[in-house]
């Protein structure tokens, strides 16, 4: 079991900055994120997009913001559970919480801070009636272990970089790779498009466009897909796996069933005080929360994280007094014994 003071659900900018503010209070943090890397939307959706409203940065790329935040919190040694989604939460008799992920990893924390942004990013699923029946039975939305496809027949659907890249990669692994896309044009990197064309010419990728998968066949597991190609009758392709790669879409996910007060797909919090939810000990900060006048901005998330940490400290140490200190005065003590502080001016005594 992973133990920590504050368990942060969501490793986007707000979640990452929470580690810093908690660190100043000597509180240890652990983060859970459904994505395989920290940064949330900034890393996953728009790493190369400039942001203009981060104080003191006239312009910063979203990916660089993540990089800097990670650098800033390094000294507070946060733990990460990445690629797993927070699934259940159990409040203990002593007021602490156990949060379990979809892969069964358990985390014990004194305080939980939900910084889930727009929710967990989940694969966008094609609108096929029976698709959920075949999940992990031949339908996979994310390729985790390419060896699973060794000498198997694979149908990939989609027209972006993921679909192109995996079609190329699996052409050397699978016995048969079919790539199906609704358009004739692909919108991935030019190199990848050309490589797919080359592999198609070599007969290593079966390319079907403009076409869509309209049905999945099989009983216990996938045995084939029904394909509709524009201007032709529907036909069946025998396959062992169907891999739809249509990007990711944010969903509130299991957090929505934790008994938290939800309003318009966001978690209601007490913004007049400390961004606590209706369950004492569970806070919600950043884009995932709502209150009168809420603005979904990264800088508002930073502010909320700062106030939340002060409240969390009081909850964890009800008998201790803490006086807020400026980092310019008190410096920053890392958990590893490192210390950052401004050089002291040399004072010479007057004789």
């Amino acid at each position, binding site marked *: 079991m992973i133990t920590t003071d504050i368990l942060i659900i969501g490793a986007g900018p707000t979640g990452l900055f929470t580690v810093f503010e908690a660190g100043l209070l000597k509180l240890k943090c652990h983060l859970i994120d459904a994505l395989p890397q920290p940064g949330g*939307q900034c890393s996953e*959706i*728009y790493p190369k*997009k400039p942001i203009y409203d981060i104080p003191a940065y006239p312009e910063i790329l979203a990916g660089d913001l993540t990089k800097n935040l990670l650098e800033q919190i390094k000294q507070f040694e946060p733990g990460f559970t990445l690629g797993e989604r927070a699934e259940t939460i159990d409040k203990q008799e002593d007021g602490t919480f156990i949060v379990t992920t979809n892969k069964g990893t358990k985390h014990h924390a004194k305080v939980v801070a939900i910084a889930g942004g727009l929710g967990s990013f989940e694969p*966008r699923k094609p*609108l096929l009636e029976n698709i959920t029946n075949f999940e992990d039975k031949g339908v996979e939305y994310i390729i985790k272990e390419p060896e699973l496809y060794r000498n198997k027949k694979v149908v990939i659907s989609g027209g972006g970089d993921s679909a192109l890249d995996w079609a190329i990669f699996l052409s050397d692994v699978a016995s048969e790779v079919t790539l199906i896309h609704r358009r004739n044009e692909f*919108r991935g990197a030019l190199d990848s498009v050309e490589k797919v064309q080359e592999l198609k010419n070599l007969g290593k990728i079966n390319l079907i466009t403009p076409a869509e998968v309209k049905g999945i066949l099989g009983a216990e597991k996938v045995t084939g897909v029904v394909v509709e190609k524009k201007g032709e009758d529907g036909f069946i392709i025998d396959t062992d796996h169907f891999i739809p790669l*249509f990007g990711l879409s944010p969903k509130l996910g299991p957090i929505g069933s934790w008994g938290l007060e939800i309003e*318009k797909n966001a978690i209601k919090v007490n913004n007049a005080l400390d961004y606590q939810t209706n369950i004492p000990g569970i806070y919600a900060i950043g884009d995932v929360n*709502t209150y009168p006048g809420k603005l979904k901005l990264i800088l508002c998330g930073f502010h909320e994280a700062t106030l939340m940490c002060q409240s969390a400290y009081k909850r964890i140490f009800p008998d201790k007094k803490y006086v807020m200190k400026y980092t310019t005065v008190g410096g920053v003590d890392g958990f590893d014994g490192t210390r950052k502080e401004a050089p002291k001016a040399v004072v010479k005594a007057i004789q």
Partner: protein
Amino acid sequence: MSLDINLKITDRNGVTHDIVAPTDMAMNLMEVVRSYELAEEGTIGICGGMAMCASCQCYVKSAHELPEMSDDEDAMLAEAFHVEDNSRLGCQIQITPEIDGLEVELAPES
């Protein structure tokens, strides 16, 4: 000259709303839909208006000449669901005097 234009927006429940939208606030169609709360919060404009989520996809019903699709918009619509020939992303349609009278229908949430 008036700074406001009129739009007809059909929501996801099939209800058509006559909307007045300002042309001097650098708004786009997605933001107008959000400000009039024509779709549930969290279901439209999820990516913030960067043509990266398709949650603001709409079908253009009138014959207005709209700005050409950018590569980003085209790429997003290539990945999205419920796409029709008249699909556009609301976040890529700026509110300008040229689109006065525009009629759109919000695509289903996906």
